């Protein structure tokens, strides 16, 4: 499982970075989204990978070793909400910029290319 997860994080990060450095605004947004998926997976991995372990302790005394760490899951939840909101905002700015400048280049003007 470790190798699959780390490959997934690596590929998402690499594609995200490549898209982030592209000149079109839409590519930049997709790049940021891919990067945020990679970061979310990374946070989950920071809480150690467990299968079949619930994060919420039931009633009565319980052995903490039988449960997954709930903190990274809470962090990821927060991070997802925040990145969702900022991506939505960035999309609006992208549309406004496209409307005002007439191009989808990140600098608001097309180079020679």
């Amino acid at each position, binding site marked *: 499982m470790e190798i699959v997860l780390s490959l997934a994080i690596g590929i998402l990060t690499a594609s995200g970075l490549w898209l*982030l450095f592209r000149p079109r605004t839409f590519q930049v947004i997709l790049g940021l989204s891919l990067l945020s998926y990679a970061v979310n997976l990374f946070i989950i991995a920071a809480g*150690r990978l467990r299968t079949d372990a619930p994060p919420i302790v039931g009633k009565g005394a319980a052995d903490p070793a039988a449960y997954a760490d709930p903190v990274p899951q809470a962090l990821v939840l927060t991070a997802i909400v925040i990145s969702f909101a900022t991506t939505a905002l960035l999309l609006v700015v992208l549309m406004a910029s496209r409307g005002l400048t007439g191009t989808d280049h990140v600098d608001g003007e097309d180079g020679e290319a």
Partner: protein
Amino acid sequence: MTGWLAHLVIVPILLPLVASAFMLSMDERRRTAKRILSLGVSALLVGAAALLLWSARESGPVAYRIGDWPSPFAITLVADRLSAMMLLLTSILGFTSLFYATARWDRSGPRFHALFLLLLMGINGAFLTGDIFNLFVFFEVLLAASYGLILHGSGTERTSASLHYIAINIAASLLFLVGVALLYSVTGTLNMADLAVSLSSAADENLALLEAGAAILGVAFLVKAGIWPLCFWLPRTYAAASPPVAAVFAIMTKVGIYVILRLSFLLFGKDSGGAAGFANDALLYAGLATMVFGIVGILAARHLTRIAGHYVLVSSGILLSAIGIGGEALTAALLFYLVSSTLAVSALYLLIEPVERHADEADIIEGISEPVFDDEYVGAIEEEETEEGVIIPGTIAILGGGFIFCALLLAGLPPLSGFIAKFALIDALFRHVSIALSHWALIALIILSGLATTIAMTRAGIDRLWTPGEDSPSRLSLVEVTPIGLLLTVCLTLMLAAGPAMDFMQATAGALHDPGSYIEAAGPAVQGGGAR
């Protein structure tokens, strides 16, 4: 700390949040009510911050655990001297900028007041929180509000500048999360005080991972602080923002500086074993590079907004390299410089718009009356000059006076607080037993930055204020002059009360270098007691 005073710590976060949420439900046309409400809230924030500062000075750091959960699990807010001082600075800037905005800026787009109060809430929260994940949340709140405020007023320049600003800040936030995750995976805690404790006893094999985490986290803050080479967005974005927004943004780079100050002393102070002094050299050299970039930028800038933007970079550079060198006396001096330069830059941002407005008019008039051949109207002009050359219109006098004041403050010329701050910095550097080459470089750059600022401000002043034009109509409203005057008065007070202020900074620096009381107040060792 007893009774209602114990809950004061959360007021700087709750008050603007509630007011802002309430304002969203108000009709956009009820401008007067909104203005009164937001000005009232920001005035109350000044009061709350002053009270917190007083109580932190009297009785040391105060921790507030929301919901009275035990320490490492609770959302902890901590008000110590440094946080309270930054809160007071924020609320003063917030109040003056809001006041200025009521001249006409709050009408150029919807929801200005609600966004502005949310920005204040985010900044206050970032200064108060004692937990790195909540720091992330408050950072996002202040950034989200700042995205809205940058766009306030719309226009092509603002939209494309904010596109860069938003993209860079989202990328930096992702780095922030990676850093938090790395620190959590090694230490298992997010509480800053708890982190400091577990870092001092971290095993050697984990040290590399910890340092990597802290470095990635640091990059996220350095982007906010505008360090070279991560600062290219800053001058353009700040120049594109409307004046009251830019004035309050002057504190946003300081949020990055504050976090670096807090975390580097808390996590990598002298008690923290193998990781002590981590990244200090990197901060020092990056700070020096930022200063060089800022100085060149100041000299090359053709617009006042660009000068101000590059000055923000220079002051970030000075602060970061001073943090890198460390030492109590230098830390005290850098805190003084932080307060003084933030106030001065904010005043300059407010002043720029009236000055440029006047200059624009002069340009137009000049263009009409310009003689085609140089010698054509010589006689006529001289005659006029003898008649009314000495009359200086009141507007120009006020603007010019404020401009000179700002220039002296920014350049660090005597007798104002900017001079005292730079003097204290250089004095503290000379007190080191052996002065390294990099310290000499910092001293030279501090003095050079003053020279560059003087040159640029003189040039801009001659260009904008002295260029002869027709008498400008005195359209400077009291609403615009008062906040500038207030900010400059605070600087004057800082100059007159430099002794007590410096004493306070000394004690703050002492507490930063010896974070025992902070850890005791916010850390997990204390049993029970929500708000002590």
